[in-house]
């Protein structure tokens, strides 16, 4: 089953084409890496899939809903987490969980069950009443991810989720991602860490608004005759003419 589909998606701002005819499909339960240098158009593309901005032309669907016609239905079926945001600092751990569960329409008794479950899984039970600002960054990110999939969305969009986090915590974070994928949640992730790219099932690399490469990490390395993903990325990114911002 295809969870994300894009056919010739274009987004223009005036004369500037931020996203230039991108096409791809993502399967259910897949971990899909969405790579590209800063300014390559990743964020713009992601905003279209999240129902935040309408494409200039082309078609796309997320979780079975058309991104032009039913952005509201898409919002109900996706989760979202970004590096910039990790929960509300001045709310307690359980209050954050409650807030987001409430926003996504999780029922009252489900909320308390899921909260306990989530805290147990992360080994966070003693932090229930802690203000989020007092947690270390890595913990926040793990908690933030768990909250973003609390309503069991069909897809979760992760925008550089592990920025600034130490390697050990990143490792633990990816274990959570694998668990979620095994649960049938499709993962759509952007990252700057090339070692993380290796963890993905498939990867697309965007250069100047276009998708220049799309395959499994193994095939990409073969194709570009590279020993690791970093080399693949460097070869493609060098072609870029657009300035990063």
């Amino acid at each position, binding site marked *: 089953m295809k969870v994300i589909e894009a056919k010739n998606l274009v987004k223009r701002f005036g004369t500037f084409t931020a996203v230039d005819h991108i096409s791809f499909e993502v399967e259910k339960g897949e971990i899909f890496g969405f790579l590209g240098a800063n300014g390559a158009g990743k964020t713009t593309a992601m905003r279209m899939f*999240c*129902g*935040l*901005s*309408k494409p200039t032309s082309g078609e796309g669907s997320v979780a079975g809903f058309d991104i032009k016609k039913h952005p*509201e239905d898409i*919002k*109900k079926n*996706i989760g*979202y*987490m*970004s590096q*910039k*945001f990790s929960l*509300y600092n*001045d*709310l307690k751990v359980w*209050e954050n969980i*409650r*807030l*987001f569960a*409430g*926003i*996504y*329409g999780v029922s009252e008794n489900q909320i308390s069950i899921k909260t306990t479950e989530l805290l147990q899984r992360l080994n966070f039970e003693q932090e229930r009443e802690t*203000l989020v600002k007092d947690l270390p960054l890595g913990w926040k990110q793990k908690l933030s991810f768990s909250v973003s999939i609390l309503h069991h969305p069909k897809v979760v*969009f992760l925008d550089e989720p592990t920025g600034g986090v130490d390697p050990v915590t990143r490792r633990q974070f990816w274990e959570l991602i694998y668990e979620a994928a095994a649960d049938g949640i499709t993962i759509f992730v952007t990252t700057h860490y090339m070692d993380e790219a290796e963890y993905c099932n498939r990867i697309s690399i965007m250069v100047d608004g276009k998708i220049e490469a799309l395959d499994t990490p193994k095939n990409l390395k073969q194709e570009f005759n590279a020993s690791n993903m970093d080399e693949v990325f460097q070869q493609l990114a060098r072609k870029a003419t657009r300035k990063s911002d």
Partner: protein
Amino acid sequence: MKQFGTFVMKEFHHIFRDRRTMLILLGMPIIQIILFGFAITTEVKNANIAICDPSKDIATERIIERIKASEHFNVTTILNNPDKITALFREGKTSMVICFSERFNENLLHSGNAQVQLIADAADPNTATTLTNYASAIIGSFQQDLMTQINIPFVISTETKFLYNPQMKGAYNFVPGVLGMILMLICAMMTSIAIVREKEMGTMEVLLVSPMKPILIILAKLVPYFILSFTNLITVLLLSVFVLGVPVAGSLFWLIMVSMLFIFVSLALGLMVSNITETQMAAMLISGMAFMMPVMLLSGMMFPIENMPVPLQWLSNIIPAKWYIIAVKNLMIKGTPVSSVIPEIVILSVMVLALLAISLKMFKNRLE
């Protein structure tokens, strides 16, 4: 609706967890009312004055007694002749000298014409005017008493009466102004900061990706500030009635209604600022410079609008606080019926609708 409730709760958490802001929000009205009511006032009390009395007779003695009894004056020096007056003013401690002519009582009784000169330090013209007015009033009352005793026919005496505020209390003027300022500050500044903070932190993005409707996100932000402003409104009214002794002369119901209207105007302004700014700092500066300063300077709270140059008078028309302050003065101080403030109510209503329409349109455009 449940979503909305959860969301309003979250906003309250943000406010209550930030103790310092909380203290400012609830303490500021109290401090301002007390400052404006007692400390910052145009009334002059205990001004140091000197009296020059070369004649020392029964009439001057009586007048001096009255002056000493007044709470406005504090008589520091009594001079025997006018030579030292200039030196006295140079010292800078004396605001006014009351100087009687020689043979004051004699002249008064025989020619019916005795002179007294009021010399005031007009480096501060307002104080000078006020002091001479007080002194003239005291001398005038002495004169009147004298006339009733001696019974001279055909005397025309003028009597001044101050309506609505017979004691000329400064608080009558400041209460409406402080109300306007506080409501504007809390609604416009605090809401714009609260919304922009979510933009700055990146949480706005997450909320927009959620199924929650954008308009509900914004409304949920406004609710707590509406409640806070309302609390402040009640605090200011209670303080002004029970501490400053400024009564609510008119309808309390309409006073609160008009205040709520003004709160809506301010909330809409805050919403607009949040749309055009990206950082909390910018939001604070804009609300401070573009809203607070005009409220203080152009709304008629401190300086009479009638005295301003014509272009500034026009400018004052677009300041919501001006209309609110006029309405509060009418409803609260003068106690006129609500029909007298219909123009102000209409103007404020039009402002609310226009501002809301513009802000919501801007908000939608930004989402695209």
